[in-house]
């Protein structure tokens, strides 16, 4: 079968979506005091709700997969379609018009970052076994990267992998692992040689999270919920075929994953915080709180709205170019940088508008509820690469400034 044109593909996607999903209802004008009073970026949902959401995500991913839309750019042998990124963006654009479950828990890390890494570095039998399951929604994958002493300096990982016959034994502690409690698979960055420069003694593995010795413990974050985990690896036996890339050649593998991370982060929306931090909502809030006559508040408001709107323009322009095959390079991290800053400023602006009514739950709609987002904002400057690391990347890779001497 030849490659469908974008127009034909759009028709196919539309037919699929109208059969399996309902069009998103137009979000009416914001009416202050109506609708759910929830302002959060992280889910922080009760366990049952969280589990149900993940199940809905898995079900929707399976429906896509069974209809040939689970992995639009992927190889056919794993159930992909081998179409272009432009096709994928066409699909994403159309799907956004429908009311479908959020599949971020499956797609952001597993499909978006780990699957491309597997394609580039894992053995064919591993890919045969796991990639279809991942794209069918059966296997969620997590990133076992950061450690207590390896945050921004990821190459400093201390988790040891020691060879034992045809397999390896993994011992160590991982931290800040999103979705580990939902995951069936994990990609581990480990140390195989402590006697060489740190980047040269790293090896990566794909592990099954149900293997003996893997212990996932939730990590409660300052906003109250527990999206992250600590993962303890205690003598976890990993067959050598689960190794990705060469022994001691894992840094290259890790970089493949991180490059895909930076490509995906930034284009994403603000999750459940999208509507409350939207311009329409904030404008209503400005009026409802009576702060629209306060010059100081107006200035802060205008500055945020200017940057927020310009960031939207930037994202749309990147998407428009990507649809014609012009994919963003590392300069895309500007979007992520701005996204985190804008969301943070929105939370503080909301606090300025509510004033002391945010101090305690007085029952006022649209006041105390902002605390959840506010308390999540410090994470935006840390997750997916800290602001400082992002700036190093912009400085070194985009502007060509010299690296810090070792």
């Amino acid at each position, binding site marked *: 079968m030849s490659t469908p044109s974008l127009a034909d593909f759009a028709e196919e996607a539309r037919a699929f979506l109208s059969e399996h999903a309902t069009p998103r209802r137009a979000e009416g004008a914001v009416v202050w005091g109506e609708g759910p009073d929830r302002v959060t970026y992280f889910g922080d949902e009760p366990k049952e709700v969280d589990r149900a959401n993940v199940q809905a995500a898995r079900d929707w991913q399976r429906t896509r997969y069974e209809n040939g839309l689970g992995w639009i750019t992927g190889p056919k042998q794993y159930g992909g379609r081998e179409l272009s990124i432009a096709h994928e963006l066409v699909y994403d654009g159309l799907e956004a018009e429908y009311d479908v479950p959020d599949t971020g828990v499956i797609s952001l890390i597993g499909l978006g970052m780990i699957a491309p890494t597997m394609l580039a570095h894992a053995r064919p039998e591993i890919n045969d076994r796991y990639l279809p399951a991942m794209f069918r929604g059966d296997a969620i994958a997590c990133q076992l990267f950061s450690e207590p002493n390896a945050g921004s300096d990821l190459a400093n990982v201390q988790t040891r992998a020691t060879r034992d016959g045809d397999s390896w034994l993994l011992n160590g502690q991982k931290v800040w692992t999103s979705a580990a409690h939902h995951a069936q698979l994990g990609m581990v960055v480990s140390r195989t040689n402590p006697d060489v420069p740190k980047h040269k003694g790293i090896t990566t593995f794909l592990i099954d999270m149900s293997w003996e010795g893997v212990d996932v413990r939730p990590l409660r974050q300052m906003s109250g919920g527990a999206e992250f985990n600590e993962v303890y690896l205690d003598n976890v036996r990993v067959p050598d075929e689960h190794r990705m890339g060469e022994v001691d050649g894992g840094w290259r593998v890790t970089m493949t994953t991180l490059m895909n991370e930076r490509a995906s982060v930034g284009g994403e929306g603000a999750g459940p915080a999208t509507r409350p931090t939207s311009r329409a909502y904030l404008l209503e809030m400005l009026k409802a709180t009576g702060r629209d006559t306060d010059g100081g508040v107006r200035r802060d408001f*205008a500055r945020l*709205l*200017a940057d927020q*709107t*310009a960031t939207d323009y930037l994202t749309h*322009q990147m998407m428009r170019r990507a649809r014609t095959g012009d994919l963003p390079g590392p300069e895309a991290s500007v979007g992520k940088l701005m996204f985190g800053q804008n969301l943070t400023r929105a939370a503080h602006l909301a606090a300025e508008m509510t004033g002391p009514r945010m101090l305690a739950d007085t029952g006022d709609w649209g006041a105390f509820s902002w605390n959840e987002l506010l308390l999540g904002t410090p994470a935006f400057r840390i997750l997916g690469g800290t602001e400082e690391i992002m*700036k190093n990347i912009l*400085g070194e890779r985009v502007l060509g400034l010299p690296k810090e001497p070792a």
Partner: protein
Amino acid sequence: MSAVPEPIGSEELADLRRSLRGLLSTAADEEAVRAAAASETGHDEKLYARLATELGVQSLALPAPYGDGFGMEALAVVLGEFGRSVVPGPFFSTVVLAAGALVASGDAAAMDRYLPGIADGSVVATLAVIEADGHWRHQDFGVAAQRQGDQWSLSGTKALVPDLLTSDIVLVAAATPEGEALFAVDTAAPGVDRTALRTLDITRRIGRLDLGDVPATLIGAPGGLSQILDAVLDRAAAGLAAEQIGGAEACLEMAVSYAKVREQFGRPIGSFQAVKHKCADMFARTELGRAAALEAARALDGREDAPPAAEAAAVAHSVCSETFMFVAMENIQVHGGIGFTWEHPAHLYFRRAKADQLMFGGPAAYYERLLRALGA
């Protein structure tokens, strides 16, 4: 305004940018810019003429039959290149402000009279709005127009008029008994008194215009001024944004190349995170501003998927004004002492950045304009 302008392909835009950059790299290099800025007229008339005859940039975005009918996106490329080199001269005043006002007025007779000369580079024009209190406003003018029969005459003072001394024609915002209106004044007419003023931005001249019963031609109809100025301001904001991003780009490139070669403590200063992150911030703000400027141009051109023009223009004016000022300041900081000298070009951009930011009222005005465009 006219219909949706001719679309222009990205390759044609890149060609235009290349040709113009080629011309300006010699005709408006730093030495030439300083010489032009210090000259009697404050600009290089030969360059202005070459721009018209060799590249036709004055007529590029004018509607047919006066010009090529390309829109703001093409004009933005030109302005971006001018901004990169802080080219002195009346291009912005003539092509963006004056021609913009003429086109917005829809006054066919006025367009026939002035646009051909603007298009071929033989006529330099400007727009006079600001009076003694320094506010950019669209009503309550001190300059008053009186009618005797068919003939209007103007009296009063416009305190800050860009490129006034080199202009052949000034479009003046004035009060009439029937509402505010725009008038064209020939600067050679009796009763016109023009005074050159010392300026913050030495690459853009400003003058005071005193009018004593000067004959003037009405443009459009009395009461129609505010609509014209709203349209001009959107256009000017988008055009200025493109120029500001050109200037910011130049400052960023200057800072980055200096940070790569300047060594202290035995290594290039760009390897220090304090400097590297400053450059990264400059880059990030410039990219954000570039997106805002581009979107404003697309909106002004009425592109299908673009936001409303008033919104995008106000966003671009706010974001690009802040961006250019920030990047121009940080450029000096990256350079250290050398960046503070008269001989270094950094101050030309610093001056331009602050002047651009204040030209249409300053931060208080542009943020309020943005809030109005958004409905707050």
